[in-house]
């Protein structure tokens, strides 16, 4: 589904991502792990078009998408969340989720001003779907709330709901469990499984090892911007390079 080929990104003299290659099969959960500064979020930003790559190629369904703009990638079925929350605090919770459905709606300024009958009806449907999605990710009680009234953990889920509202084929989750407690992390894991079961390919960057090991079909380990290892949870756990670099050597 997604192929990354010798992807590189340099910021001035810093090589944040150097020649990383991997392939993600459709319908799987794929995790990217590595110490802080390993280039995980940079890799996400490259794939989702937020950064432009210095070198290399990204392909979605065998189509080259390197350096396409994020809004174009959204059109091709890619959606994502952010490590530092990017919820619109000037809007209500449900409106945030409805923004995710932007591409399916008539977003003409004039159509909106005149509230053409079709626009109003589609908007009503969209609102109901957004409310249902909020219930699906577990923040149904905030449907009438303003985003600024929601606690951190709920905002993380709200971002997932917004990403799902786009009905993505590929969902990138940047540290979905960051800042959550043990119980919440477990619940996020259940949610991610539910999403994947719905036919969405999930890629996640995550620090919580237990979550990653339980959830992921395959794991990519980054260190200093390059690929250290890749494989199933068992393979990665047994890889000596990974153990010494990241999990800590068992002497």
């Amino acid at each position, binding site marked *: 589904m997604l192929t990354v080929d010798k992807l590189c990104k340099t910021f001035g003299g810093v090589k944040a991502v150097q020649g990383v290659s991997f392939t993600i099969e459709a319908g799987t959960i794929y995790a990217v792990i590595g110490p802080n500064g390993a280039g995980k979020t940079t890799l996400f930003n490259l794939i989702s078009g937020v950064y432009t790559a210095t070198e290399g190629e990204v392909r979605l369904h065998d189509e080259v998408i390197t350096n396409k703009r*994020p*809004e174009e990638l*959204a059109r091709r079925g890619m*959606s994502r969340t952010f490590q530092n929350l990017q*919820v619109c605090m000037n809007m209500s919770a449900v409106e945030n989720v409805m923004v995710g459905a932007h591409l399916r*709606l008539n977003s003409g300024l004039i*159509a*909106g001003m005149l509230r053409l009958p079709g626009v109003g009806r589609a908007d009503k449907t969209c609102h109901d779907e957004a409310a249902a999605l909020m219930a699906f990710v577990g923040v149904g009680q905030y449907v009438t709330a303003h985003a600024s009234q929601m606690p951190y953990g709920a905002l993380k889920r709200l971002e997932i709901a917004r990403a799902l509202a786009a009905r993505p084929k590929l969902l990138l989750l940047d540290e979905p469990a960051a800042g959550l407690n043990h119980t919440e992390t477990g619940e996020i894991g259940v949610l991610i499984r539910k999403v994947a079961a719905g036919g969405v390919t999930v890629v996640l960057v995550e620090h919580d090892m237990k979550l990653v090991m339980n959830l992921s079909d395959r794991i990519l380990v980054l260190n200093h911007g390059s690929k250290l290892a890749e494989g199933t949870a068992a393979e990665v756990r047994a890889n000596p390079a990974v153990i010494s670099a990241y999990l800590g050597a068992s002497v």
Partner: protein
Amino acid sequence: MKKSFRGLMLLAGVLVLLPLVLPNAYYYDVAIRVALNACVAIGLNLLIGYTGQISLGHAGFLGIGAYGSAILTGRFDWPPIAALLAAALATGALALLVARPILKLKGHYLAMATLGLGIILSIVIVNETAWTGGPDGMPVGGFGLSGWQIAGERAWYGVAAVLLMLVTVLALNLIDSPAGRALQAIHGSEVASRVSGVDTTAFKVRVFVLSAVLASVTGSLSAHYVGFLTPGVAGFFHSIELVTMVVVGGMASVFGSILGTAILTMLPQLLSAFEGWETLAFGVILMLTMIFLPRGLVPSLRLKLGRGKK
């Protein structure tokens, strides 16, 4: 939705009942100017309050409308409605032309660029004395449509009130539509709106053009109403005044723009005794608002009232 419906009923009620209590032509004049200015402020609020993009040059667009109408009707004998539409079209074209490069900028740089644009337009109007009368200004005829002439305060009040009502409804509709949510999402998080598929540049350009055209149309009508134009309408101070109306009334609040306009239009009348000091008063009011009501009048009041109920 319900909230804005109540607001709409209130606005309609005030607009309908106002003629019953306005004692004389002077008060009509103030009401008409409030209604017309409010239309500009609402358009500007869509850009500043909702989309989060500043413009310190919108009086320039208003000036194109006003002078376009004055010149086309006065020198070329165009019908006022044709002149109004032509000026609006020209304003839209200019706004479209400059929007793309200007709206790539953010924060202070965007403020500087729009400021520069406003100043250029203002300088052109002052210097093209052959067309605009320069600093001496120029007279403008009345506004008529196929034999029917808007004459007298009551008729103008009717036109201004209907226009304000129309602009308010359209703006509220827009805010509560997919396009309006896209605009607000740009304000909330540009990167999040992009990954949701919002073409942020296109939306910024569209709302900039929309607010510019609204300023132009209102400028045309104001010119016909007042009957005489001076370059001040397109000047820097007027641009700041418009932004002040938006900020004092409340960012991202349509009704706030109307209230802000009402206050800032009436204030100079109250302060006219202190000639030349109104500028200072504007500054002080803006500062006090930012310090004590950073969200502006209407959003702050709404918050206070909401809390009071609980």
